[in-house]
């Protein structure tokens, strides 16, 4: 004890740190040596760099978007005319199940989390996420879950029960073969992945912000990330429980959802929608974060009413947990209870309406530059507000009882999800593409694909309101002639094809620009948040010196100059932790090295999860390789203790 104290008083050992004497190229070389991932394929697999992980998340999610989009085209071809026999009933049911499942679980949530993993450490001014290996593990788990679903589909054992898989249709008696099991287990994979990311991001945001970045100075996107991550943590356990109940009903004969044995078919709907509704906001809130950043940068002014926008995010996140029954208005629950959920559902439009006001007012008082990211924001407002207002309609019980489960709902949620999340996402990809790749996307191609997506979308989805009102239920593989459904469906199909082509064009633009795009400077759009302070693309260690922040728009207020702190070690991976509220420097903390064990652990988990589709014993025996992988992952490194004074 005393000797340790004496040692601590002794002059600090000679550990190299960044500082005035170690800067520029020399610092770059030494930090790179510490933070770069190892070479080769194993090195690639071992990477724990949040930029690698985030990029892979986004690429994988875009691949799933393409697959899900191809299925959408197939459905629109089948529905382009009445009594079409292009795709049979069973195949069509698989296709819409795969489309919904892929888009919700394998595209929308992961792509948002991928963007968050990539951007959050850069925006808060740190070198890594809080739990790099856990984040790497989540990536591989997610990819394994996606592959399970799609390989099953290609082997013709894909799920055919709809993306919310209501029992008893998905239960042991009516869900044939292993189709529902594969769906349920895919859900488990993606839940594990999403939870791991959420935990990592929450800790990153709360403890690793640059000195001076108080909560009130965080970029709105970081706020959105914090709120959605907390929502993931509170909502995903519900669906993980639901899908585990379903699997055990199917595999070991429990009767959670079997009314004949005093189970309850509605239990599933409560558990699923308690997750399912927050999930929509888990997809939508990051998009509002994109919008806030883009609006500020392209209007060249800070966002108006920052506290209101932040409080709206938080309010939406809380309200999202009180709405789930509006998916169940037709199930015959007590009407007094419905009234509560009607009022709660409608009240969501207050925070959303305030946010929209803030964005429009920001543009009004700023000087908007009409470049592709801002165009997507404008398209977002035009489109999303329609989806929000139809959402107000279906919050009313008497309206919902007609519109529920019709194409009106299909129109509503595509307006909300494509208009509300995909448009901002495409804007965000265009916006941060130069940061991630060092090259700009083509503005001309970007504008062409923008107009095609925007107009094609309206053509595809507006007529669905009409077909729903004319009595077309969703999830039908065909419809009779003479009900007036021919024209709206034909228009939808044409619009769908236009959107598909436009997304293809967007991806071509991305691929071409990675190779041949105009080289991007560090801050091509003159943005204000910290990610624009580092080079494009950022080095493996993100920032040579950790920036110090004293306003909400640091790069604008500092006129390009940023104060920095020194003193992090360069031979070791080290982060600066700050306090939760005021972001004053707290401690230096080591950060995990690259390791192949996360990917191996994910593989072991995959074996266990896939095995448990077929036998409950897989859960038992599957824990052995998983335990080995986790033990190796967490094996403590023996290292000489260095007693150094901490930063204060």
């Amino acid at each position: 004890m005393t000797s340790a104290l004496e040692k601590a008083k002794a002059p600090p050992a000679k550990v190299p740190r960044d500082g005035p004497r170690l800067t520029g190229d020399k610092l770059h070389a030494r930090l790179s040596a510490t933070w770069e991932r190892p070479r080769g394929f194993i090195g690639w697999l071992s990477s724990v760099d949040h930029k690698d992980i985030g990029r892979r998340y986004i690429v994988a999610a875009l691949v799933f978007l393409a697959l899900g989009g191809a299925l959408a085209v197939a459905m629109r071809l089948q529905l382009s005319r009445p009594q079409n026999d292009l795709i049979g009933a069973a195949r069509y049911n698989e296709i819409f199940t795969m489309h919904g499942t892929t888009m919700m679980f394998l595209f929308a949530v992961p792509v948002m989390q991928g963007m968050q993993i990539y951007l959050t450490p850069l925006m808060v001014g740190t070198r890594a996420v809080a739990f790099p290996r856990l984040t790497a593990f989540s990536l591989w788990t997610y990819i394994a879950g996606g592959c399970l679903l799609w390989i099953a589909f290609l082997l013709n054992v894909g799920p055919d029960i709809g993306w919310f898989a209501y029992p008893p249709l998905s239960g042991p008696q009516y869900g044939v073969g292993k189709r529902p099991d594969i769906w349920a287990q895919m859900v488990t994979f993606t839940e594990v992945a999403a939870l791991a990311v959420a935990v990592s991001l929450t800790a990153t945001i709360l403890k690793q912000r640059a000195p001076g970045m108080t909560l009130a100075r965080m970029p709105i996107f970081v706020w959105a990330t914090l709120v959605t991550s907390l929502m993931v943590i509170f909502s995903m356990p519900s669906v993980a429980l639901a899908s585990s109940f379903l699997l055990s009903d199917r595999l070991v004969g429990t009767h959670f959802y079997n009314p004949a044995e005093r189970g309850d078919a509605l239990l599933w709907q409560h558990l699923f929608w308690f997750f399912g509704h927050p999930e929509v906001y888990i997809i939508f809130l990051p998009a509002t974060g994109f919008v806030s950043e883009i609006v500020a940068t392209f209007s060249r002014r800070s966002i108006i009413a920052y506290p209101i926008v932040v409080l709206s995010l938080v309010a939406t996140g809380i309200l999202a947990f009180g709405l789930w029954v509006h998916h169940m208005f037709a199930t015959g629950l007590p009407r007094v209870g419905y009234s509560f959920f009607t009022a709660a559902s409608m009240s969501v439009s207050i925070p959303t309406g305030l946010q929209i006001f803030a964005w429009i007012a920001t543009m009004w008082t700023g000087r908007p530059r009409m470049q592709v990211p801002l165009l997507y924001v404008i398209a977002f407002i035009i489109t999303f507000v329609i989806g929000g207002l139809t959402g107000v309609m279906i919050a009313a019980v008497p309206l919902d009882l007609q519109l529920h489960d019709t194409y009106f709902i299909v129109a509503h949620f595509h307006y909300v999800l494509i208009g509300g999340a995909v448009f901002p996402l495409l804007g965000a990809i265009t916006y941060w593409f130069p940061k991630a790749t060092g090259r700009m996307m083509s503005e001309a191609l970007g504008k062409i694909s923008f107009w095609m997506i925007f107009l094609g979308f309206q053509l595809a989805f507006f007529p669905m309101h009409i077909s729903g009102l004319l009595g077309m239920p969703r999830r039908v593989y065909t419809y009779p002639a003479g009900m007036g459904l021919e024209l709206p469906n034909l228009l939808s199909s044409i619009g769908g094809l236009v959107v598909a082509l436009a997304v293809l064009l967007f991806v071509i633009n991305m691929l071409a620009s990675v190779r041949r795009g105009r080289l991007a400077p560090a801050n091509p759009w003159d943005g204000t948040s910290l990610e624009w302070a580092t080079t494009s693309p950022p080095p493996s260690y993100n920032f040579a010196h950790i920036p110090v922040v004293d306003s909400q728009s640091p790069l604008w207020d500092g006129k390009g100059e940023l104060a920095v702190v020194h003193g992090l070690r360069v031979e070791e991976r080290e982060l600066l932790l700050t306090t939760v509220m005021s972001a004053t420097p707290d401690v230096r903390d080591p950060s995990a090295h690259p390791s192949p064990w996360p990917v191996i652990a994910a593989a072991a988990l995959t074996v266990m999860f896939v095995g448990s589709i077929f036998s409950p014993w897989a859960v038992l025996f599957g824990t052995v390789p998983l335990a080995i992988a986790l033990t190796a992952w967490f094996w403590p490194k023996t290292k000489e203790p260095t007693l150094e004074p901490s930063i204060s």
Partner: protein
Amino acid sequence: MSRVAALILPLALCGCAGFQNALGGDGGEGANFVRLFVLFTAVCTFMYLLVMAGLFAAVLRRRRNADELTVDTGKHHESAPLVTRALAAWAILIGIGLMALTVASFFTDRSNAAITRDPQLSVKVTGNQWWWDVQYSFADTSKSIRTANELHLPVGVRAEVTLESNDVIHSFWIPNLAGKQDLIPGRVTDIQLVPRKTGLYRGQCAEFCGVQHAHMALDVTVESKAEFLRWAAAQLQPAPAPRTPLELAGYRYITTRECSVCHNLSGTPASASVGPDLTHFASRRSIAAGTLPMNKGNLYGWVADPQSQKPGTKMPTIGLSPDELHAVVAYLQRLK
């Protein structure tokens, strides 16, 4: 009111068939829906136009060129008082709009609940993959009607439909008359229908229920009380006896061979209840829950190979010989 709806939704005009139309408003609850829908659409359209006006004004507003490259920073906490006032006004406007809509929604809901006190007719509908089992019970308990995939309702009479499911979750939806109500195994739910206009309507299952969810329709006939009573009286009769040798052969096949394993024909040895009741089959408008219109050609096609007409249906393709097929169809057509 519905004319207003048609003006707001011009595309709705392109399909005026209207027998499966949420904007039809041909029942008590259906009419309430149309009224409330028009109100919501009007309010929402107003709010939408307001947002769009703000958006386009913000984007297209004239600005001095010199401003273009400057950045406005650091003033995010202290917005101009005008902006603050506009924000407050906007919040109040949203609040009032929502309040009005919520209250309108509650009152409509209450009115829907009140429409249906003291039902005068009770019908039990049971959902099956992929057909509707329909049973009428009367005060005289010795009388009851069992039919399938069709619903006859006397106009102006309050009917209470009790809903159950034999297998998975279905949803009962006749858009012209009322909203939808799920049929959930292990639970009994109900919905009240008060048809206001005679006519032929169509209902359809609205909750995905398996392979042939798309072909689970319900033919609805709203008729005068007298016509309804005539129909009910006819339905109470046993299955008509065969008149020709061909019909007799069909009768024998249906009542003694594969068909009788699943189907019921009152007054004959066929008395199973796995499949739809066939007692007055030929009096219905369609075959196999709206899959095919009722006519001789479709009957041949259906009986010969149901699996190609409605893939996945529980009715197997038996492989009747041509003689058997002729006979079965002949007797089925007799079942008026």
